[in-house]
């Protein structure tokens, strides 16, 4: 049973991708994504994932990232990781909008948000490298010059 479902999960989307590649107009990107999601849901029909579960899960991931930023007093690279985790949790919300509410634009939002968060991480690492050149330290302990 497991193997059968797994095969359905794995090969169905690729077949439709192949059809797109060949030029079959009946298959579009949306259909591929929806079939992917459908097959995933069918394959895991024993463990049904509903909307609420998905949202709670993404909210948990978001809060892990947010608490990581707030309570992380030591390492800046960990902070960057927390930022990424936070944005990934938000992306899950957008993607759940696509999966459960058929909002196709959610996927595009998720893509754009993903690239924006990557750009943010790059800027953060740039700042980190610049400060590392001045004082080779990646902890927050040196950040006590400005206060009052």
């Amino acid at each position, binding site marked *: 049973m497991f193997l059968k479902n797994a095969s359905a999960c794995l090969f169905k989307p690729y077949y439709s991708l192949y059809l797109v590649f060949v030029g079959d107009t009946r298959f579009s990107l949306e259909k591929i994504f929806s079939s992917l999601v459908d097959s995933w849901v069918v394959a895991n029909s024993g463990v049904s994932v509903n909307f609420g579960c998905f949202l709670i899960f993404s909210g948990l991931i978001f809060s892990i990232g947010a608490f990581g*930023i707030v309570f992380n007093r030591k390492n800046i690279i960990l902070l960057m990781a927390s930022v990424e985790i936070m944005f990934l949790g938000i992306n899950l919300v957008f993607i759940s*909008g696509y999966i459960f509410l058929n909002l196709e634009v959610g996927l595009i939002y998720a893509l754009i*948000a993903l690239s*924006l968060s990557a750009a943010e991480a790059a800027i953060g690492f740039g700042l980190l490298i610049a*400060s590392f050149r001045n004082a080779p330290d990646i902890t927050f302990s040196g950040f006590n010059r*400005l206060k009052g």
Partner: protein
Amino acid sequence: MLLINLKQEYIYLTVFFVICVSLSAFLLLLSYSLSRKKKNDAEKLSAYECGFDPFGTGVSSFEVRFYVVGILFIIFDLEIIFLYPWAVQFGTLGAPGCFAVLIFLIILTVGFIYEWQMGALDWSKSISKKRHNPQEYDCKVPSALLKVATESSVPRVKVIGWPSRPVVSITPPNVEWPGGRSPSRVFGKFIKREWVAFLEDPWNEILAATVVFLYFAQTYLLFWGLLGILPIVFFLLITASVKYGRPAPLLGVFTAGLIGGFTFLSNIYARAIWDCWALSTHFESHPYLDNPFWGKLVWSATAENNYIFWSFSVMPAEFYHADYIIKDLYTLYVQWYLLILLSFFLFVTLPYLILFAARESINLTEFPIIILFAAFFMLFLISSFNFFGAYVSLEGLTFSLYILAGMDYNSQNTLESGMKYFCLGALSSGFLLFGVALIFIITKTLDFSELKFLFNSLKDMPLILSFALIFVFFGFWFKLSVFPCHAWTPDVYEGVLTPVTFFLATVVKFSVFAFFVRILFFLLGSQVFLFFWQPLFLFVATGSIIFGAFGALLQTGLKRFAGYTSINQMGYLLLGVSSGTSVGLQASFLYLFFYVAMGFSFFSVIMYLQRFDTGEDVLFINELRGFAQDNRNLSFFLALILFSMAGIPPLAGFFGKVFLFFSVYQAGNHSLVILGLTVNVISTFYYLRIIKCLFFEDVNVNFPVVFAPNIDAGYWFSPLFFCAALFLVASPFFLDSLLSQVDTLVSVARYVQVWQW
């Protein structure tokens, strides 16, 4: 059922886990129990080196350049995400898709060439630069320096302003201003030497900037864009290749390109100006007015028509880019003001940047370009009509601000403040996006017009929606730096370059506030939402008024003081907004205009004050002691600004506060008026402290302060300061016209709904 399925599917995984954990625990225990216990000795802990004595620690960190290349790789790798949908839909998209992707790839390639030229990919060369130490001059008193200046044959010391106040202009050594490097390798040989010589003089640079700006403006007015792009490309190529990595000539002409680039909106300005004029001269009726340049202006105003209908009839809202962008009168007004602010900002900060780059031998070529990015995103923020579009533009603005904040990459203070800004900014933008995502899930749309339709049909406030809205508000409060999200403000304002502080305090606040008003009064304008956000905003406003005032009381640093002051002023602004009436919004806008004007005047003076001995910027309040004895006019002007900030009657700040408190009183919040006035009295103390420093204390003989010694300030600044002073003093005289403009703004912002309490 569910549990059984779970058991069936995950039983193997559980067994696997149990085996893994028990095996590793067993091995650990085994090694712990069997191994011989021995105390750690130095020999064992030392790093193993073959044949010679060990040096250093065994743990060494990676070279930073690995991270740089890693980041660049990730960035370029991620762009493939955008190519993937295009590749899948290649046949459907056709030639336009190819064209769009080509533009995208060209932009990427330009970025790649840029990073290559900046030396980010060079493994062998060290990228770090050491800070140039400004030379310590041994003469401590002005007379001694004067003696040196008059007697020495060194050409870089020059006396200006003789004989009333002898000011010595010191050009720092080792720097030929505007300092130079070899021309670019790419286009250098095509550039004639005379052009370079022409652009080297900053005055010619400004002239060129003006000419280019006018040219672009004209071009864009006549031909819509296509022909106007060519000269931009031409000028950018020339200027980018004239002197690679040379700030001085590049700054001006890039700025020209930037302002010229903005003029693609010039048809919009023309219309906005036209509308302003039409609104101010109360025509009874007008025929159709068709103009090929300004578009079609229609008015059908009668005697009983007010501004709302008028502005509707003058210009209905237009939507672009799948309704993500709106062009209505509110957008046009705010963009118009924003562009005026930006051009003033660049005009005032350019000389400072040139001087700073020469003094600290640092490359600030990117500064105007990043200001360009910020301006682009601010314009789009104001005109965005979708929560996701607003998020993207706000995020782009924030990215530009992160880069601007870390611009002076040799100063640890700057980098610290940039890092702090980044950490808290990432948190706040995450909150904003989470709120947006929740709204998307709840309402299935992010479009403002659909959301407004949905929200108007609500009878009660859903809990999850209020949750999401608070998340969104958090993001905006952070950008406005008001009470619960104000913690970053003093640190960032103190650490970053003064022009960046200037930018953060004035232009960014203006644009974000303008968009925030659209959310509050257009989107959340119904009674249900008003009852939701009004108490919230009253809390935030009073909190930031109190925190700003009491934080600024004991500050010694000028920029830190400005940070706390801006928290306080933003609190007053939100106090007007939170009254929820159109009068309150009107008062807030009036106060915003005055606030921005005062900020511009304040920073354009503060930025150019330098210590006499080291040539460094003035950063502390007590360094201003006795400045009135040196420069009476300028300190009078500074006092005028400070009095206006404090709200002393004949000046602009007073009128802003009067209207504000009047609106709050009218909305029924009498206790808040009393509180605001009390805090205002307290805040007068710290403004007066600076005035006391300026006028009633003796000059610090060790380091008197001079105003802009390296540029001939008389030409530039006196007209500007005169205008600003005139504005501060004479604002009551044209208060009527200002109010009418603000009134239009408010009525357009709220469209139709105006309720009174």
